[in-house]
């Protein structure tokens, strides 16, 4: 026969177990909702089922002479040297944003050729290249 103490302990452990499972379930569920996938322009072109209007990241190099600025926003073309995508953004850009430099834009796809960014990421260090972009460039340079 189980003593009262042991019973209490088993009860306590079951509570903890179920609580942790529920907590973990919620963590993972909201994690899945808030993941930002990173894609290159080529991946966007090739993928059939890319969701429009869902937050994501696009990265590549800012194409030379492609930046235009008007009253409302900044537009520029991001290329991975195979495919391109037009990005529109309004706000200030980070200091290392420049033509022929790597960039990561966070925002939503409007269609397969047009991306509306609400955040532009660049790094502190001018020699630094985001790992994703480095990979793309190395792949396409071959």
């Amino acid at each position, binding site marked *: 026969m189980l003593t009262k103490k042991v019973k209490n302990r088993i009860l306590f452990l079951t509570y903890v177990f179920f609580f942790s499972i529920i907590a973990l379930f919620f963590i993972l569920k909201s994690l899945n909702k808030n*993941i930002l996938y990173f894609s290159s322009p080529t991946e966007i072109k090739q993928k059939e089922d890319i969701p429009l209007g869902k937050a994501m990241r696009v990265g590549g190099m800012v194409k030379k002479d492609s930046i235009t600025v008007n*009253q409302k926003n900044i537009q520029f073309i991001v290329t991975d040297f195979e495919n391109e995508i037009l990005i529109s953004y309004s706000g200030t850009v980070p200091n290392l944003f420049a033509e022929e430099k790597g960039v990561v834009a966070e925002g939503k796809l409007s269609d397969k050729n047009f991306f509306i960014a609400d955040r532009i990421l660049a790094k502190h260090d001018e020699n630094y290249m985001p790992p994703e972009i480095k990979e793309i460039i190395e792949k396409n340079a071959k």
Partner: protein
Amino acid sequence: MLSNIGIGLIISVLILSFLTIYSASLDLETSSQTIKKSIYKLSLFQTTFTILSFLTLIIGFLNSDFSLVNVYENSHTEKPFFYKIAGTWGNHEGSLLLWINILVIFSYLFLVFNHTHAKKFRLYTLIFQNILILGFLFFLLLNSNPFSPIYPTPPEGLGLNPILQDPALAIHPPLLYVGFVGCSIYFSAAMASLLSNYGGKLFAQSIKTWVKISWCFQTLGIIVGSIWAYYELGWGGFWFWDPVENASLLPWFAITALMHSLIVLEKRNTLYPWVIILCLSTFILSVIGTFLVRSGILNSVHTFASDPSRGVYILLFLSLMIFSALTIFFMKHKKENYNFNLKSKETFILANNWFMAFFLVTVLIGILYPIFLDVLTNTKISVGPPFFNIVIIPLVVPFMILMAIGPKFNWIKSQNKISYKIIFSILCAIGINLFIFYFFGEYSLLSNLIFIAAIFLILHSFLDIKKNISKKNRYKLPRIISHLGFGLLVFFIGINHQFSLEEDFNLKVGEIKKTDNYEINFQDIKIKESKNYKAVIGNFKLTNLKKNLVEYLEPEIRIYSNPETLTYEAAIKTKITSDFYLTMSNVSRSDYYNIKFQKKPFMVWIWVSALMITFGGFMQLSLKKNED
């Protein structure tokens, strides 16, 4: 020349470490009750030499001695004096030397100040701390030597990244390092305590002060980093849930949990294994954070130049540390029986630990998930801020309520305590929240709960302060102040989040932009020459149309010469009730300037309340008698 001196000093520290370990293990065998004088001397010499090596590096930077690769790569003759010194730890190699300095200094101080504790425990602590020191010394010598010479000596250095030339960022690394590396001493002490069977109350007393010191510095370091990000990165935010920021938060959760459960160990002599686990994991998490930041596997806005070979070494060292810590723990730990009453102080402190553990796991999953997914499926993802907000913020509500009522309970067993104070505070909190809700704007149910809980904690803390001041119970004040600071922090962040204004647009010089309440007039630009940069300064006139108030804001675009870099300096007008924040940037030399205008209510109060949390910690350090 300096290179030889530096390397000589480092090698003598290395030899001294070996000697310390050797003579300490010899001394373990002797029957004498006191530690041999020679060990004190060795440790003192070790500390002196380490500090000297750091001073050597500082001299290298001050004299712009470009025969050192490190100075050549990170300094420049025209750099202001202050940043020449700060440049010493503004790079990987120099900061590693600072890291070792802190390891060594803490090792010595722990040896000297804990003379009342058992000899065996102190010697083991010294041995483990020196093993850590050796590990990092080898890393320094083999992979990241700040004293590597360069030949022929270059005439001019490359300069320090301008974005780092900032007072907040000059003091940010030393603060964080004292916080993170300071954890090493109770990592060693925990291992020593397991091996020498020196647990319980006495162990808690021996590490108490060190835990508080590193907690204070960690908190302060994180706040200073956050302030820097606010005015330097130009987004107007102060916390981005960026992987690197998160990495600094991991040890902080662990150490906060440790600080609380340590009280239980000291007063009730229980929870010993859990305290040991927290001691071990705090330093392990600090090293994990360093690994993540330095190896460059994280895609972060804060990533500095990184080198995978560093990552491999740290990872190796880290696995060794975790493996040996776990082995010793499972070999030596003893089972304990817990009989906690639900209505007791220990239960509430445990609740704090549960929350901290939950926050820690959440942030850890957020950091590691992208890395695992990348390795397993080669999919690149990042975890957005909404994840952390959704998972963490709802739990802050019960957390704050427990923070207010938990400390009221007695040890072992208390009566039901629903005092008039709690009822009064809750009613007032609901009232104030309704007032804000109706008069300033509507917000979600969750925000309502957050505000109510925060105001409840604030009011309850104020009542506590009033009571304790009249009773002259000064030793309770530090805890109340820290808890009050946390309540205020959450409250002001909530207000700031709900009532911020943000406008993005592009303007030519001379144009005017009108928003609902404000008119922004881009009057003109002027050029300013400074010692190591040129600046384009925009002149903005900001008019509040409702109140007819005028403000002038002058954001800058700076072009630094060494190395040639562009930075955008935000113009910030800080008022008691809100900050006006304006940044301007320019791409491809177009006529249009990109403007970001923000109004951030109670910004200054976020810093004040965060500093208040730290202040509570420092105050507790200064008081002789602590709360029981």
